[in-house]
């Protein structure tokens, strides 16, 4: 059964590592639904959040292969109920559209969105939320003319009481070196 999984990868900051990670998707012809990369709370350690639709067997093997990469510290997968996640979306509309009616203002309030910048020509609205929410706002705004629309990849945080990465790292560093 196919379902949505969020993969979290912690890694060293090495050039080419993104390639090494995505290769595992390419060879299985898996489409990456969303991908974000940024430095984690620990300096020098990077966090990848990858969303993918696949079967359970695939995700298990996939995550093992990712974790096997030398510079990957840890990789795991989570189901939607195990995470809190957000995406950010930005919408550019013509300021004239906003001024002609007060409906847009109502939509912004209703969606808890906010205005980031307003010029004579255009207005940029920002909304964070799940894909369905940002999509819905897009559809609501569309009749008034959306000049540009972007959505970020997912950022996610676990609901699970997992071992903290910093503790895990300490454990790794204190581990006796094992030769061969």
């Amino acid at each position: 059964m196919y379902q949505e999984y969020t993969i979290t990868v912690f890694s060293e900051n090495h050039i080419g590592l993104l390639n090494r990670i995505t290769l595992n998707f390419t060879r299985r012809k898996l489409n990456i639904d969303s991908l974000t990369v940024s430095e984690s709370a620990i300096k020098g350690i990077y966090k990848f959040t990858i969303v993918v639709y696949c079967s359970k067997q695939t995700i298990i093997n996939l995550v093992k292969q990712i974790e096997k990469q030398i510079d990957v510290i840890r990789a795991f997968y989570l189901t939607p109920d195990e995470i809190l996640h957000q995406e950010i979306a930005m919408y550019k509309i013509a300021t004239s559209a906003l001024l002609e009616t007060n409906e847009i203002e109502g939509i912004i309030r209703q969606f808890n969105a906010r205005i980031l910048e307003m010029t004579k020509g255009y207005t940029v609205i920002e909304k964070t939320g799940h894909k369905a929410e940002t999509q819905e706002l897009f559809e609501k705004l569309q009749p008034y003319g959306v000049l540009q629309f972007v959505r970020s990849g997912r950022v996610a945080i676990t609901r699970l009481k997992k071992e903290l990465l910093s503790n895990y790292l300490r454990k790794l560093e204190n581990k006796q070196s094992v030769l061969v």
Partner: protein
Amino acid sequence: METLTKEKTEVQKDKSIRVTGSEALLMALIAEEAKIIFGYPGGAIMPVYDKLMDYELQHKLKHILTRHEQGAIHAAQGFARVSGKTGVCFATSGPGAANLITGIADAFLDSTPVVCFTGQVYSHLLGSDAFQETDIVGISMPVTKWNFQVRRADEIPEAVAKAFYIAKSGRPGPVLIDLTKDAMLNELDFSYKKVDKIRSYIPVPETKQYEFEKAVELINSAKKPLALVGQGVILAGAEKELEEFVDKTGIPVASTLLGLSALPSEHPLFTGMLGMHGNVAPNVKTNEADLLIALGMRFDDRVTGKVDTYAPNAKKIHFEIDKAEVNKIINVDVAVLGNIKQTLPLITNLVNENCHEVWSNSFIPYKDEEKRRVINKELYPYNGKISMGEVIRNINETLNGEAVLVTDVGQHQMIASRYFNFKNKRSLVSSGGLGTMGFGLPAAVGAKFGAPDKNIVLVSGDGGFQMTLQELGTIAHNKLPVKMIVLNNNYLGMVRQWQELFFDERYASTSITSPDFVVLASAYGIKGEHVHSHNELVEAMQRLWNCDEPYLLEVHVAKKGNVFPMVPAGAPVDRMVFGDEK
């Protein structure tokens, strides 16, 4: 890259000396005891070769010039496989580096420790489509365990140290280091420290105590256990530990292609090879067994046949060093992670002595049937042409197992693996996972350097031999006493066999003309002779072994011989075809 240099700057300056990047590379190789390099020079790697000349004159390093970069990497693989050391090869940028890829992919699938160094254009030219520039780091990424581009001379010592550590530790594999020309030419303060730990890399996973206990319980209670040996046993150097386990438990043993020679062929509990062209008894018994003990093997599809019907009655224990292999193809009941050289003796200590006589004896009828329907005909053909099996029997009778068998890929490979008498450990060098035609001849070159005191016999086919026959030049140049046997059937035999069995005998592009291999060898100054008949074979084999130089036999074998028995692709392993069915 970034962290590399960060750690690098902290080395003690007082112990260091000022050298160029090229010299640092060679000094690092000496520190890693990598004395033999297989390679091919070219523009971007010239600074390294220039320095190498000095080191060769001082007998500190030895460079073997192959005739193609693919030859260099296969030779490094052959070297690594027989010696247990890490193979090293050099190539230049662009085409030189790209020519290594097949061998790197082969080493990746067969877990062979090799470290490749490739030249690269000056760092300021990177990304500019400079002459002989290719993104070898990008190209090799899917087939290397690790790779790295060195752009600064002072990155070299640690990059090399990491490369050797990663290639050899845990589940071994190929590593590629790409060096820009300026990194070779610039100077650095050289000091060398071997790497024995990388934070993000756990080469040997922890073994869980309860897995031990479960494994022991399953082994003690099994009535029909079968041990499946893979190359993991050989890579761990656990041949002795395997024998002790088997002798105590009395469990019959079967081997994958690459696991051959972990246990001598003549061991009373050895039941043969698994898989598509394996032996009947272990394949049939896989599906009767109530316990499979997988020792350093990965349930390749050539071994399992149809996965859904594989070993339906068996509990499974998987001894494995690579966590990602567990439950990949076959779900197992117990996974004993760790280095098998350490884990297996612990199990041996805890399990009960046993002999499984009835179970072991139940293999015999299948063995006899295979003998009657296939083996006897293959080894002792009574009509006209020489068979491939007959040639292998002759090698066995002449040498009594005192040789390392190197094969190419195809029918001859399966026949040689089936019938060769494996007596000593590490006595098979063959391309398993990737099935690389052209592997044999250069691998034999490397094997001779890796085991100079052993007899190295290459068994190749007329197709595969022609893929890398330029390495005859390397053999001739180094006067390497490699014994080459080309089994010529004028066909790409394995593909032709499949065409006969599964494609209505439509022999598309499998009939192949070859040069006269004996004349070809003589053009390189290598002795050889043709063998057409059974009688000639015996005598030619004597001359082959009595000669202390390289020697080539071109054996003209039956044109349409087939390898049987076989598990047709996608069929259950206990449905073997003998080839005599009507």
